[in-house]
């Protein structure tokens, strides 16, 4: 009987409307990517008839999408490893509260939460240029990792803080050093939060547009978001090719999402909601 409450009905209805708003463009994009340039113009974009083909996918791979894909994977992997490891180390020291300098660094890093990357993009560009890192993937690894540090450290600190103090003291009393505590206690216990942060930061890095736009130029270091716009420049009238490019760039994330849906959703919502 509860089911029939009108309020619930309205909720389901509204939810469904939003579902259509979310899915319709995606459906359109998938369908469009399987057209040829000719059939795209002639057939109804909402109906899967009039001949479908995968030729757009080979077009985009010939245009260098594979290169962008490799660049994106490299960049994302490097950023995840770098951010996650150094943030955990910092979080451990911050929770140990061993010196005032450490606590001060934490405050400085928290301050970074309020600085939008757009506000400092010009000096970042100048700096990277002076460091002779312009148009390299290293420039992106360094800057994107730096940008991810505040959130990562904050989340890690709130996690490491919950590890019982007694465990740490017991290890120290038993002759363990700070290093063994980190290596044998903090690191293994932090696996879940490491995974959460890896997903959260990984998504941000994978999809970032501004830093690659400003810090790189040539096609051989272009990452996917930038590469897609290059594709659009090349094939501005070939919509199926552009859509195929977009889909290829989401595919790795989609696979990740299907494999570990729960984990991905809790990282997306949980990182900030904590």
């Amino acid at each position, binding site marked *: 009987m509860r089911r029939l409450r009108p309020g619930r009905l309205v909720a389901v209805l*509204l*939810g469904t409307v939003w579902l259509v708003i979310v899915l319709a463009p995606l459906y359109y994009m998938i369908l469009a990517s399987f057209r040829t340039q000719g059939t795209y113009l002639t057939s109804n974009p909402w109906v899967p008839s009039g001949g479908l083909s995968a030729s757009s996918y080979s077009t985009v791979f010939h245009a260098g999408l594979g290169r962008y894909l490799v660049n994106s994977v490299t960049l994302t992997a490097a950023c995840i490893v770098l951010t996650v490891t150094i943030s955990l180390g910092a979080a451990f020291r911050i929770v140990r509260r061993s010196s005032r300098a450490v606590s001060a660094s934490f405050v400085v890093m928290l301050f970074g939460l309020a600085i*939008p990357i757009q506000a400092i993009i*010009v*000096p970042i560009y*100048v700096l990277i240029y002076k460091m002779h890192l312009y148009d390299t993937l290293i420039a992106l690894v360094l800057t994107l*990792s730096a940008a991810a540090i505040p959130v990562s450290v904050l989340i890690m600190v709130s996690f490491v803080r919950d590890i019982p103090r007694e465990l740490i003291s017991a290890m120290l009393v038993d002759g363990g050093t700070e290093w063994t505590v980190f290596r044998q206690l903090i690191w293994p216990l932090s696996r879940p939060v490491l995974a959460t942060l890896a997903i959260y930061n990984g*998504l941000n890095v994978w999809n970032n547009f501004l830093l690659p736009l400003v810090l790189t130029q040539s096609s051989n270091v272009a990452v996917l978001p930038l590469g897609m716009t290059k594709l*659009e420049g090349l094939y501005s009238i070939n919509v199926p090719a552009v859509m195929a490019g977009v889909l290829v760039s989401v595919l790795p994330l989609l696979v990740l999402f299907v494999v570990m849906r729960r984990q991905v959703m809790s990282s997306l919502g949980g990182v900030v*909601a904590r």
Partner: protein
Amino acid sequence: MTAPAVQGARTTPAAAQPSRRGGGRDRRRGHRVADLAGVGPPMLLFCLFIIVPMIVAMVLSFVRWNGLGTPHWAGGSNWAQFFRDPVARTSLVVTLKVVGLSYVVQTPISIALGLFIAGRQRYRAVYASLFVLPLLMSTAGISLMWESLLDPNFGALTSLAKSWHVAFLQQNWLGDPGLALYVLVAIIAWQFIPFHTLLYQVGRRQIPQVLYEAATLDGAGPAATFWRVTLPQLRYTMVTSGILMVVGSLTYFDIIYIMTDGGPGFTTRVLSLDMYDAAFLQDQYGYASVLAVLLGVLGIAVAVSLVRFTGFATMASQQEGAA
């Protein structure tokens, strides 16, 4: 014994006791080395690429520099240029419009959807995972997708308009000066509502069930429960989400840059776009830094005032108590 998880536990506490005093200095040095190894690398990276650029941006805003020659001290002339520049004034207005509209559009929808997917029914979990899909897409991808979808000649909306005979759907969505800004706000909402929906889902699930039972006992209907229990309890989620929404849309760049580049005319030109143009197209690093500093200061001011306004600062202690 007390800590079975500790693998390094070999010596007993009694055996470790004598060495303790002598180990004090070692321990302190161990701490210093560990601090340096632990906090050093992230601090170095963070200071070099975030803190130093922030300071440089402030300095650059008082300097005339084209990026090549020697920078010249310009006093307040860059700032004066901002206040004289009519383009900057329109950009400021457009930016504030984007911020305001985004907040007004995204917040109620996110709350409604968040409450919807907070339900434990199976089909709602399915809805929730489909709602999240836009979050997986890059802004570049989203822009390109909507660009072709909204194309006035071959786009999918135009085709709908033709087959359903709904003339309204056939518009020059991004080329019409009266429409473009609203279309962009809608696409930005499409991109970010999923994220805020997740925040509200988490927020709703943290509300103690007892409160709802009490409300039912007091005879509160669904509407009263929503206004008197759910919404007040979501206060902190609203602040978090609000800050992220406002600061995010204040500095919003990607979709606008790719889809309209500020056009038609100056109708969708926001401050971040102004800044990008000044720096990377016109080589006016000083003036670009004025805009950058403004964006940063505006963002921090909004965040701080939202926190003050709502007594968000008390949250930390509350959450610690709950954890």
